[in-house]
């Protein structure tokens, strides 16, 4: 109906509909009728006024309805088990300490580096903190390998995390969607290609960091067998991969889970393990269909649960 209208005419028509209660057809006709007669300066003014009005309206609307939270009485889904959340928590904690006691060494000429290191007990104690955190990271790595090998849930989750050709297709479609080439968003299962990338990036990071870190931890022992340049490679790789991993976490991971406009400022799923049905439908439609189709749930599938009072 409104296809033949210009942007301004459409905006006016919409305003006539909402503010003056006209039906769509009348509003469109009136809008088309009145706008050509407006001087360019006046139409600019109208447009700006409308924008301000609409913005105010949107703000009110947003304040009234919390975004992306379970509507009262709405279903929630248990996306991450306690086991997985604990793995994530231990890893996050150890990585935070590793970054705090590690990156200052890479940027040792900055004043803030000195302050952070002295916070961790100075150059004699902070290496111990780094090694304790590293031990935690190694432990959580082993824990995870046992989890994906020895538990039903872990095995099924791992299978869902394996890269498939569909991920490349999804990524391509997502880019096309970003660029406005398609209105159809890719329909993800439990793990989108973004989440799979995060998962496998951790493997790469763990191999490089734990491997090179072990060489640096036991330099004297390694030098009994290997030449000095071997430990030099370990040092360079440890330092460079540390920066890459930190940037990937802080920029990429934090944006995707917390800082994007749909989740800002924080997504609580890493604590509660739950997501709302609305989020489930938007972000994991394929999984949602599978779960709600009545077919028996797999060990890795998110389970519908009653909303918790405490969890918002």
């Amino acid at each position, binding site marked *: 109906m409104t296809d033949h209208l210009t942007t301004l005419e459409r905006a006016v028509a919409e305003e006539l509909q909402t503010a003056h209660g006209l039906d769509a057809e009348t509003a469109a006709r009136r809008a088309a009728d009145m706008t050509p007669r407006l001087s360019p300066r006046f139409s600019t003014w109208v447009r700006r006024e409308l924008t301000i009005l609409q913005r105010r309206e949107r703000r009110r609307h947003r304040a009234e309805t919390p975004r992306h939270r379970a509507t009262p009485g709405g279903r929630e889904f248990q996306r991450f088990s306690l086991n997985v959340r604990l793995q994530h928590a231990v890893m996050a904690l150890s990585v935070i300490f590793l970054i705090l006691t590690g990156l200052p060494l890479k940027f040792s000429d900055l004043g803030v580096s000195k302050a952070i290191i002295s916070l961790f007990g100075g150059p004699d104690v902070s290496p111990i903190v780094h090694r304790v955190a590293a031990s935690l990271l190694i432990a959580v790595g082993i824990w995870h390998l046992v989890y994906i090998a020895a538990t039903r849930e872990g095995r099924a989750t791992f299978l869902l995390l394996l890269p498939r050709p569909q991920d490349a297709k999804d990524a391509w479609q997502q880019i096309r969607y970003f660029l406005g080439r398609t209105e159809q968003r890719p329909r993800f299962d439990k793990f989108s290609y973004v989440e799979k990338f995060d998962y496998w990036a951790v493997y790469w990071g763990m191999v490089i960091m734990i491997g090179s870190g072990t060489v640096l931890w036991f330099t004297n022992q390694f030098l009994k067998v290997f030449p000095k340049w071997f430990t030099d490679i370990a040092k*360079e790789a440890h330092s460079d991969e540390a920066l890459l991993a930190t940037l990937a976490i802080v920029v990429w991971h934090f*944006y995707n889970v917390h800082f994007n406009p749909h989740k800002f400022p924080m997504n609580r799923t890493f604590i509660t393990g739950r997501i709302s049905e609305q989020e489930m439908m938007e972000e994991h439609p394929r999984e949602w269909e599978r779960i709600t189709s009545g077919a028996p749930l797999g060990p890795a599938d998110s389970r519908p649960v009653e909303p918790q009072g405490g969890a918002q």
Partner: protein
Amino acid sequence: MKRLTLLATAALASGAAAQPGPAPTPAPPLAVEVRQCGICHGRPEFKQVDPDGTVRTLWVDEGQLATSVHAKWHCIDCHADVDRIPHPPRLALVNCQRCHFPGNPVGAPEEVNYEGYVKSVHGRLRQAGNAKAPACQDCHGGHGVRKPSDAASLVHPLHLPQTCGRCHVRVFAEYTTSAHGVSLLEKGNREAPSCSSCHGEHGILPPKENASAVSATHIPETCSNCHGMTEFNLRYGIPINPVRTFRHTFHGIANELGSVRVANCASCHTAHNILPATDPRSTVNPANIPATCGKVGCHPGANANYARGRFHIDPSSRDAGIIYWVALFFKILTVSTLAALGAHIVLDLVKKLRHRQGATVRD
């Protein structure tokens, strides 16, 4: 005598308040006119046998005195405790501070750093009663004081090693055969460091003290005065900046963060016996690396593997060998990964913001 009185008058006239040092006090009336010191001290054979049997010459070379900066002064201007002839057998040590204090009226150089000296290891030992610790005249000379810039001065950079070496014999021996010593003393290269270039002049502190210019925490900074400059390093065939590259090793980082346990420049290169790694006598010669790294408290049991690789690595330079390629790999990986992820984030952000807006204002 006339001059001394003149000096005292001038000092009084200049105002007592402006004098931090002890002003030259008017000498008590002399029993004799002390003008004739040369009658005894002018003779080279004038000697004294001390109770312990050592023979001390009491000859004052008037020629030496005449070419010194103090040529215009009389003996009693410095030896102020001589008030009669013959004078007591042992005179007090001359106090240079009689004239060399800020605001002194006789035009004596004021930049003399007494405070530094008093706090220095030499001054402290001297005050503690160690007669072997040097006072001013031990380094600057007694009767033959010359400006440090004077080539004949005892503290001229070319002479300083010998002057310090009178006490620090072993250090002198090490220094003279080191790259620095050979360059300065044999080749006469004034760019090469003399003792004071690293240790400072009057305020010399033991290396164990943090404030010392050669303490573990300050030595990289001290060495970087010369070796921190690329042109300087290139002039002496050092292709990398040794201080900057040190700063990026674990040794250098811990040093920067205040660790005194970790290796600093001198730990590997030694303090005085510094030689290029190509020299077989050098502690950083590949053949000597195991012994150098294997020092007690460092890497006990170090073997030849410690020498198999480069030192002072600059990962951004092709000279770094394999480290250059590792660093390049990670540089490319980091930049390309973050570019891709960043682009994805920007596209996602734009779409999400548009989407929110799109509900009301359509473009």
